[in-house]
């Protein structure tokens, strides 16, 4: 099986006047279809740069990057835009939906920039199907500010899926969400992964990384650990645990109403 992503000795150096910052100093990596990877690391470790390189948003200063067999490290700005549109799906920490625009129109957005023109009826059908996958078809006409954070992130996932990408890239997708919603969003990712979609996400939460199959730890621009997750978390179980914990907290509160009185 041919890997989707082949990174060979990727380097990225930022130049700030006379000062050179080596954000990534030679990462080699292969990602195969069906993988579910978490990239972890402290801030400044180079994980965001690695993610931007994987997402074809940034060009490495050294090394080669084959995406689906194509060398994307040498493509120009607009060719990379086409690659992002056709082969990659993005989910961001801040959801990044276009404001005052309905969920449906947000999901339609990548198709408007497709190299091949998509008819408006096909665009609507595909957007509705993507919203259905994340369970939000009923709310297709809601505006972002009428949706909860978790729902907004699911709209963003639908938008990332709509052009049937080879790989889904998520940059701290649960960073702005509470525990319960984070588990729900990870549940969506797990379900998509079971259907065969390759997912790479950046996170700094160990709990969240345990929902993935493979964890990479980046430090000082190098991958220092690359291991598969042994006792994976499964979203339905975790949700159950979370509900029990909450119920227990409530029970405690009912039995001992003054337990937290000093708060």
């Amino acid at each position, binding site marked *: 099986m041919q890997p989707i992503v082949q990174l060979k000795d990727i380097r990225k150096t930022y130049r700030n006047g006379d000062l050179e910052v080596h954000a990534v100093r030679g990462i080699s990596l292969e990602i195969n279809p069906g993988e579910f990877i978490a990239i972890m690391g402290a801030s400044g470790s180079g994980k965001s740069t690695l993610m*931007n390189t994987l*997402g074809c*948003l*940034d060009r490495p200063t050294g090394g080669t990057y084959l995406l689906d067999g194509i060398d994307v490290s040498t493509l120009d*700005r*607009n060719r990379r*835009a*086409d690659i*992002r*549109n*056709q082969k990659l799906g*993005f989910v*961001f920490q801040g959801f*990044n*939906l*276009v*404001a*005052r*625009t309905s969920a449906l*129109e947000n999901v339609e*957005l*990548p198709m*408007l*920039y*497709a190299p091949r*023109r998509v008819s408006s009826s096909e665009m609507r059908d595909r957007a509705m199907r993507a919203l259905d996958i994340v369970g939000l078809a009923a709310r297709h006409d809601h505006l972002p500010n009428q949706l909860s954070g978790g729902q907004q992130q699911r709209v963003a996932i639908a*938008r990332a899926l709509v052009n049937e990408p080879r790989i889904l890239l998520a940059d701290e997708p649960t960073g702005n969400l509470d525990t319960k919603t984070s588990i729900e969003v990870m549940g969506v990712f797990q379900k998509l992964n079971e259907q065969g979609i390759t997912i790479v996400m950046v996170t700094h939460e160990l709990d969240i990384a345990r929902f993935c199959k493979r964890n990479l730890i980046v430090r000082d621009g190098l991958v220092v650990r690359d291991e598969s997750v042994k006792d994976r978390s499964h979203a339905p179980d975790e949700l159950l645990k979370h509900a029990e914990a909450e119920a227990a907290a409530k029970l405690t509160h009912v039995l001992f109403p003054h337990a937290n009185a000093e708060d």
Partner: protein
Amino acid sequence: MRFIATTVISLRALRRNKMRSFLTALGIIIGVGAVITMVSIGNGAKAQVEAQVASLGNNVISVFPGSATTSGARGGMGSSNTLTVDDALAIQREILGAVAVSPELRHGDQVLGNGLNWRTQIHGVAPDFLSIRAWSIRAGDIFSEADVRSNAKVCVIGDTIARQLYPDIDPLGQTLRIRNIPFRIVGVLSSKGYNYFGADQDDVVLVPYSSFMTRVFRWRRTVNNILIEASSAEAMPRIQEDITALLAQRRSGREPDFTVRNQLELAAAASETSRTMTQLLAGIAFVSLVVGGIGIMNIMLVSVTERTREIGIRLAIGAHDRDVRLQFLIEAMILSAMGGIIGVILGVTVSEMLSHFNGWPVLVSTESVVVAVAFSAAVGVGFGFYPAHKAAKLDPIDALRFE
């Protein structure tokens, strides 16, 4: 290629921000509206001036008495007393292209009729006078050449005389006494209103010049001026020269004591004044149109900054530079085109209202509408390009991080 999709994106973006879109277009609306209103007012004033000049008649050449020198003192314009009916007849006989000629003798006096009296101007003229002055008859007819030859006691009265002396009867066939001499009224002139200088042109009684000289004002030998209608505007300079030559010849070497003027000179001066005014008004209005364009640029620039994240999202999910540039250009163009259209409606409406309620003469010209709309579209592209270019050059990573 992706033009349709980009237009859809632009329309969605404008619809999302209806208030901002309206405020952006407002500058253009007011600019275009102002241009059209100002130019319409200017054109209306110009047309009115031209109509007043035209009411004096078309292609009219006037001969006035010149300066007479008495004992070395030059009397100034009109002091000579040598322009005669014979001069008028000679012009009529000998000048090619003088299609109508009339001497004009004027005198103010009291007239009586229908038991009422009124002081007015009595003009001694030839029947051609009316055609030269482009003046029509409301009732009856002008006196004839035969009346001139027979010194007939007939007259044609102006509208003011008809209203003052014959308020409730038909003046036709009535008798009007001028210096106690009875004249039969054969015609009533249609109203010509006030002239360029505010005098009532309808306060007049026309009699044959022969009757004027032989029956009413017997001491008069000379005329106030001679009016000539030229066959065409092109022929006027030539005819003017011929008249000058003819009159000089008739005075056989004496100092020329007459002046030949044509109406184009007056018309040109008057329309030059109003043209200057129109240009001034249009200039002011165009400044406001440019200000409107700069307003569009400002709002588009603010909009680019405010929507940096949105631009980042679009770039991240596959928009090319030119998609983003085209989106902002189309937004700017739609705004200015809409502003232009609303501005035309506003400008025409305000012009009509001014003419309706204020009675100002207003003339909406097609050129001003076309120029204003074309200019507003150009403003949209011109001032929209810089913000669009700025948006297209953003780096997706920086744009996505922008707070």
